[in-house]
């Protein structure tokens, strides 16, 4: 039931503006590839493992190959042509052998032409298709498990973070959290990982404020949660971050290890990790195509804006970003059901009527995106060391989630301002959620914002400001808007940021069977 009385024409206008604002960026994304996209493609084609003999530490084989290809013949044509051409030329059985030979300096990459090119492309497609079929199987397997074990009994789904830095401790905490009622387990990443231009290998035990995202860690957590799922009689979802310089690769690894959701935002890396905007938009598009294929729900990062900008002043930037994220996602093939658009309860709690302002913002998101599994993020910025204040605020966050029908509730921790969560913080936080969800289960039926009242007016105002801002973005260009500090007050020029040198303009003969298979929805 619509409570805000949003004008469908204004909503449609907002969407149209978002599409126009995004269009030039989509063009750029189509016209470029990146080292990460190419590595992701090779991962789909089956490369795994790392060069453990390297003096700078382990270097994944994909990085070895892609870097060498780039050095030898550039990436304008994609990595698949040179790589599969070399495979055949050197008569090697697997891409891993090719990588080893590459490391040993035995391979000289070239861009094949004519029949060689066709052959390489075909071989590449076969290999990549195999990877995609694994992803397809995982998707089917998820559906089967959900059918067998069941989805969480109610909305919102309870989303909990583990962040010990050690995958083994993470498993302990995740299992306890799931038993205590968590529906989604997120393993937070170590602080440094997003700026690494490679994905670490193996099980890891020494992250800072989070655990490294690796294929093996994904596998360990998914396996553990499969076991717990059976124990608790509902399918426990696992999530991680397809974000940072390796966004596309992590998307692939998530698909290969049956992750169920991934954080994936079109602008987060630009704004909060100072990653080059073009790099991000290219990577983002590819990763979302993979997510679409894998049936992975993406979680966007609008909540972050409200940690650097003010949640009231910048409320409309959240709406604008949601509309952009929606457009980029649709364009990459993601349906509404996989759009976990983000928003957050970050208004200064000492502001009069702060709770009603939160309700207005949360309801606006709900009514703008009725079919999207919105992800509702808890207070962080205004959490302090006063854990009692914080516990209460989290309770009201939970209540706002129930009253406005949010889909995925990231559980707030009373120690937000202090430490990454303790085992007991998580347990107490779940008790908080349970109390609110049980005690006020049907309260939504009694929540009827007064027509033309405070809440309705505020929601209309935010939507109006969002439309205005979208108009300006259409006029000046999204890249300029980002450069101007429109989002989260972070100013990021299009040519700045990390990973810019990993962007490559596609040549006319560019081949990427992964992109093709994803575009076509083909399995061979």
């Amino acid at each position, binding site marked *: 039931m619509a409570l805000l009385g949003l004008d469908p024409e204004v909503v449609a206008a907002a969407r149209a503006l978002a599409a126009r604002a995004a269009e030039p960026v989509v063009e750029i994304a189509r016209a470029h590839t990146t080292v990460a996209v190419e590595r992701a493609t090779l991962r789909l084609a089956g490369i795994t493992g790392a060069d453990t003999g390297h003096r700078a530490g382990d270097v994944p084989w994909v990085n070895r190959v892609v870097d060498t290809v780039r050095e030898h013949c550039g990436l304008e044509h994609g990595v698949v042509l040179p790589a599969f051409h070399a495979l055949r030329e050197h008569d090697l059985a697997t891409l891993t052998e090719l990588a080893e030979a590459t490391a040993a300096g035995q391979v000289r990459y070239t861009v094949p032409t004519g029949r060689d090119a066709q052959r390489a492309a075909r071989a590449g497609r076969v290999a990549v298709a195999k990877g995609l079929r694994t992803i397809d199987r995982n998707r089917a397997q998820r559906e089967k498990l959900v059918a067998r074990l069941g989805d969480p009994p109610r909305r919102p789904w309870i989303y909990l973070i583990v*962040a*010990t830095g*050690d995958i083994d*401790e993470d498993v302990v*905490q995740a299992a306890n959290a799931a038993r205590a009622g968590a529906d989604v387990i997120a393993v937070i990443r170590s602080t440094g990982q997003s700026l690494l231009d490679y994905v670490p290998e193996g099980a890891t035990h020494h992250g800072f404020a989070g655990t490294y995202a690796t294929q093996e860690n994904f596998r360990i957590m998914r396996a553990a949660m499969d076991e717990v799922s059976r124990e608790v009689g509902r399918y426990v979802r696992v999530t991680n971050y397809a974000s940072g310089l390796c966004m596309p690769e992590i998307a692939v690894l998530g698909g290969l290890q049956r992750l169920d959701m991934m954080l994936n935002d079109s602008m987060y890396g630009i704004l909060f990790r100072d990653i080059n905007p073009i790099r991000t938009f290219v990577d983002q598009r590819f990763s979302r195509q993979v997510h679409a294929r894998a049936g992975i729900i993406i979680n966007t990062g609008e909540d972050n804006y409200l940690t650097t900008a003010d949640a009231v002043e910048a409320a409309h930037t959240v709406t604008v970003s949601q509309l952009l994220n929606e457009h980029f996602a649709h364009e990459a093939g993601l349906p509404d059901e996989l759009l976990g658009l983000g928003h957050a309860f970050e208004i200064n709690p000492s502001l009069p009527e702060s709770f009603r302002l939160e309700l207005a913002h949360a309801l606006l998101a709900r009514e703008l995106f009725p079919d999207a599994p919105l992800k509702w993020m808890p207070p962080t910025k205004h959490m*302090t*060391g*006063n*854990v*009692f204040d914080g516990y209460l605020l989290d309770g009201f966050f939970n209540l706002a989630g129930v009253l406005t029908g949010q889909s995925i509730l990231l559980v707030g921790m009373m*120690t937000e*301002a*202090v*430490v*990454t*969560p*303790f*085992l*007991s913080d998580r347990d107490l936080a779940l008790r908080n959620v349970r109390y609110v969800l049980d005690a006020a289960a049907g309260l939504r039926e009694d929540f009827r914002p007064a027509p033309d009242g405070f809440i309705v007016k505020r929601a209309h105002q935010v939507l109006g400001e969002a439309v205005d801002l979208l108009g300006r973005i259409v006029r000046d260009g999204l890249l300029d808007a980002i450069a101007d500090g429109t989002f989260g007050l972070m100013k990021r020029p299009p040519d700045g940021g990390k990973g810019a040198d990993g962007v490559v303009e596609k040549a006319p003969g560019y081949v990427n069977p992964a992109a093709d298979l994803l575009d076509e929805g083909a399995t061979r």
Partner: protein
Amino acid sequence: MTNVRPYGDTTGDGMVQVSFTLPVPPGPRADGAAMQLAAKMGLEPAMVVHSHGIGTEFTFFVVYGSARHIVDLDEVTVVEREYPLLSPAEVNGAVRKLLRRKLVVVGGCIGTDAHTVGIDAILNIKGFAGEKGLEYYRELRVLNLGAQVTVPELVKRARAEKADAVLVSQVVTQRDAHILNTQEMSAAFREAMGERRPVLVAGGPRFDPLMAAELGVDRVFGRGTTPGEVASYLVHAIREGRAA
């Protein structure tokens, strides 16, 4: 593992949360005072993660820190239940066998304490946590004297009824009221009846079961006690003649 430490998010990290108020005006000096207290409590390192003034003369603190202490589980003293938990039928059977008459229980809240819900939970049929109270047991004769029973009155009734067991409840603890009242009660029974005194049981949410000797009673029950535990204990106490 017999040695453990508090667990925050990693085995052995020792993390604990503490909050308290010091009679010191807020400011860096107050935070320093809180750090000193944390150190004396064995928290090292400790962080004062929050402080705010309460009026001008007091400061409230929240501190997180790693407790250096090690808990030796072998040294943990608990009152183990040294008797089996019996069903009502078993209790009735045992009483019949042991006494060949009903076992008489007199209970009440002594002193000025008027919190009867706890003793009622143990005595009244309605019971607690799904277990029926002692009144439900056919072989027990229960007299619930209710609230604010004076000690002389209690002794008098116990004697008149030939009580086998006297159960007193104490909920108010300010200024150690529960301890003083219970001690007064046990002393009165000793004085009035010496060795022939009934089994004395004290209960209430803030009692530590380890306190029986200090209180001069045979057994102490704390928060969350169920009637079945008490009934089973009574059978045990009667059987053993009388517990330590």
